[in-house]
């Protein structure tokens, strides 16, 4: 039970939501699915005066617009799993949603936007939206703005969304012909992710790698972008180069995340195999 009195609001437009949030940003919490904020309030760890629930704000549409998938911020994991657009154009996002810890209850309640704004190191979404090159569309009192790349996540549990803004949607370019890999290490079925690696690999007609992107999740306060093009671009990518790229990934983790489920030293130690396993999914070694 939430012990403190609060006002519950469920705006029906983005403008109304922005008005509510910007009126008292420090004393307001926004609910995407509420799977994080509501338990926090229950435990008395957060006591906002106002809870703004976005479920009626019309932000749950998933559309394809000129090779960019517009994913409404309140799209649930279940919606991502059942959307034919996501299935076809963002298979990595669909796979991530299927693997969310918590099963059906959480998949039907948790939202992709909520997870991005919460920016928790121990969650799946940040690294995946980062590697997919997503852009966040934000609405605030000064109007709309866009954030992408490393600016999406400023620190552990701190996204680039300002307290007086609402995340309205994610714009994610289609994966196209790019191969992908997503490997998640967790302790057991109920565990949050300990370390994740998401990668996208583009190859040309002859099979040469033209572009490879790898983002690590869980191992640091924010997703770690690893520049692996120097190792992987070109032809004849075999296990040695995949392993070298994974080593590069491990070397890119400077201040490993440390929590009750795993010490930083462990996260540092497993980054190499986790990155390698992700890359191996995208680069099956048929020629190796």
């Amino acid at each position, binding site marked *: 039970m939430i012990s403190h009195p609060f006002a519950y609001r469920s705006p029906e437009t983005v403008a109304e939501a922005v008005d509510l949030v910007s009126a008292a940003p420090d004393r307001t919490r926004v609910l995407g699915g509420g799977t994080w904020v509501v338990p926090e309030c229950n435990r008395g760890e957060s006591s906002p005066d106002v809870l703004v629930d976005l479920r009626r704000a019309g932000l749950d549409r998933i559309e394809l617009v000129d090779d960019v998938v517009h994913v409404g911020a309140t799209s649930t994991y279940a919606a991502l799993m059942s959307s034919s657009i996501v299935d076809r154009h963002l298979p990595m996002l669909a796979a991530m949603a299927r693997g969310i810890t918590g099963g059906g209850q959480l998949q039907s309640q948790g939202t992709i936007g909520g997870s991005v704004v919460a920016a928790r190191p121990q969650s799946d979404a940040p690294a995946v939206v980062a590697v997919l090159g997503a852009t966040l569309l934000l609405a605030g009192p000064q109007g709309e703005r866009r954030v992408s790349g490393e600016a999406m996540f400023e620190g552990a549990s701190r996204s680039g969304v300002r307290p007086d803004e609402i995340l309205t949607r994610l714009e994610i370019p289609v994966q196209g012909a790019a191969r992908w890999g997503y490997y998640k290490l967790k*302790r057991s079925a109920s565990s*949050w992710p300990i370390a994740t690696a998401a990668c996208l690999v583009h190859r040309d007609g002859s099979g040469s790698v033209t572009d490879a992107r790898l983002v690590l999740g869980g191992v640091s306060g924010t997703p770690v972008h690893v520049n692996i093009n120097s190792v992987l671009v070109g032809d004849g990518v075999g296990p040695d180069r995949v392993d070298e790229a994974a080593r590069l990934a491990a070397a890119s983790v400077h201040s490993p995340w440390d929590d009750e489920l795993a010490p930083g030293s462990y996260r540092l130690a497993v980054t190499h195999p986790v990155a390698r396993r992700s890359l191996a999914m995208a680069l099956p070694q048929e020629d190796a």
Partner: protein
Amino acid sequence: MTVQADPRSDAGAFAGQSLRRHNGDDYVAGRIAYTDDLKLPGTTHVVLVRSEVPHARITVDTETALARPGVLMVATGRSLAEHVGPIPNAMDPAPTGGQALELRVLPVDKVVYVGQPLAAVVAETLQDALEAAAMVEVSYEPLPHVLEAEDALAENAPLLYESWGSNLMLAGTAGQGELEDLDARSSGVVRGTLRTGRGAPAPMEPRVYVADWSTRSRRLTWYGTTQAPHPLRHSIAQFLGLRERDVHVVAPPVGGSFGFKNFGHPEEYLVCVLSRLLGRPVKWVEDRASTLRYGARDSRIHYTASFDTDGRVTAVSCDLLANHGAASATGAFGMAFAGSLAMPSGYDVARFRCDWRVVVTNKGPWSPMRPFGKEAGVLLMETIMDAVARETGLDPLEVRRRNWVKPDQFPFVTATGLELDSGDYEGLLDKALTVLDYEQARREQELARQRGRFVGIGIGFEVLPEGADIPGALIGASDISTVRMDPSGDVTVLTGVTSPGNGNDTAIMQIVADRLGVLMDAVSIIQGDTDLCPFGFGNVSSRGILTGGGSAALAAEDVAAKLRGVAAGMLGCEDPDRIVLHDGFASVAGEPERALPVAAVAHALYTVGYIVAPDIEPTLEATRTFKMANIRHQADAEGRIMPFSTFSNGIYLSVVEVDVETGIVELKRHVMVHDCGVMINPRFVTGQFTGGVVHGIGAALTEEVLHAGDGSQVSSGFKTYLLPRANDIPAFEIQHQVTPSPFTPLGTKGAGEGGVACTMASLLNAVNDALSPLGATVDQLPAVPHRVLEAIRGVGR
């Protein structure tokens, strides 16, 4: 899942059959009323204010909170000390040389762990109480704190309870003898240390207590999550200074207990004094973080064992140091005592000694939790057996065969003085090997190793002392049952044992239905009400069927004898012993046409008894006690007592694969063979063991309560205290062996605690078998991935 029942059982129409639970539909349909579903008119609600620091003197200012709307009372340790004394101890360490425990429902002047309740706000609504609780002002005068047992024993360690002069609550020795010459006498010696992490009880339903003091009847009615209604009644009466008859304890169905819901927790008594002061019902509902603050295990064992070239273990010496956290009135310290007595398990080790110590620290208190410390003995001996196998080059199975007690040695007195009643350990292993082709599994392991995969095979063997009778405590190896038949032929069983939700109530009905020759739907059972049921020790130490079922069988036989007498008269049969009660009918043996419905016989005794049975006392009711005959409280020449009466046992074989890059352990196969004597309902036994095994998997691989250096508990929910989920668990391969107890009327031995310890041991051994090519060893549970990886990376450092 494979379930294969042994044909030997308490043969009857129902006993021995895997009937479904008689009230299973009510559970599934949500019709069961748990304590929180109870809505007494005028109920007030308690919210506890909890300590934010691990150790401090406190001053509590309640004035602001008291002025809040709806608030009826804000109680502190100081305010309640004017009305009540300490909580009666469920078990007391003082008579055996331990410290005197004087624990209060709320601490008077200092707190000793983060989260300790220090004030109680009572209000008209839960919301009012929650809001006011935030207004209670606590000034802390911080004291240094200590979290680890070794540190708590250091010279200048901060003292939790100053009057003790140290942090040592109790110490003892199991077994005896000076074992310092271990090396000289044997061909080899193994030494090591084992550590178990702190586990926490995790029933689906946390604790819920409601106390209702009636200002009219001057009686207290207590409703709540308890395993032991009668002992609790005694304890509450003592606490409040009431006659025992003026306390009525009601235990609605519970959503899991695991030992946690035995008695002695402060809140059980707190609601009583609050209700008495207010003259209104007072309710307290626990949250998950509170449940997880209670612990078990958190122990360290140093051991030395000697062995001969033939793999026979000749002597074992060990030192068990248990971190109890804060003191508790629940008698949880007994887990260290029971753990040491459970050594050296089912092995014939002539010379054995365990010195054990229970130490208090600034963590939450220990709570009783299955298998009540006995995992220490099992882990110790199973670790030693594997170490001897490595040293001698013998197969681990062979080492066990050479060391355990053989079937012709029973009854066998262990080095710690327990008299093992019966068993066939060799038979357990043979049965396990019919499920797991060991030679094939070893070949597959070798092939996997050649491909760079780390597969391990582990064995665990447990012997669990059950049916406890602790001198001086309300934990006894006897129970009372009443069996009653109405004029309509309906049967009611009143019993002092309770069910934690495992179906033992249905099993007792099976026992009674068979003896009275009636159908299951004619039988009902009442448990958990001290005004209705005869005295009983509740649900501890695997006793539900052992003593609860035993006494119900005796009472039912008495009623059946009377029915036979009446029926004989009505059927014109000279010899009542020729009357057969079966399938709802009383008939003359061999003459099925000479029959009457049992209900008609009952009705006749009640209505026309002067005609049909003039010489028979017209009651169809019997109350009988069953008491285990093999308990001995008089110390023998070596000062040993025999406080346990049966010894269920089991063998497990586990196959795991360790991902050596990440330390993740995957359980691939888990073969379990159990022997709890005769099974009244194999389905329930299998269900109980399944839960025990999952509990063991958690203890071995995932579950660990952690504290930060500042004393705060970082494991506070199921995202930070990881229970195994269905997809962490392979399909279990369960077999049962039946070696009846010679001391129980039904041959049962108790199945309540099986599976936890054995699983911990087989998984630890399997992980170490998997890591053996790397020369790495894990000696601490749970074997969480970072611990496994550290063991691998520590090699050659």
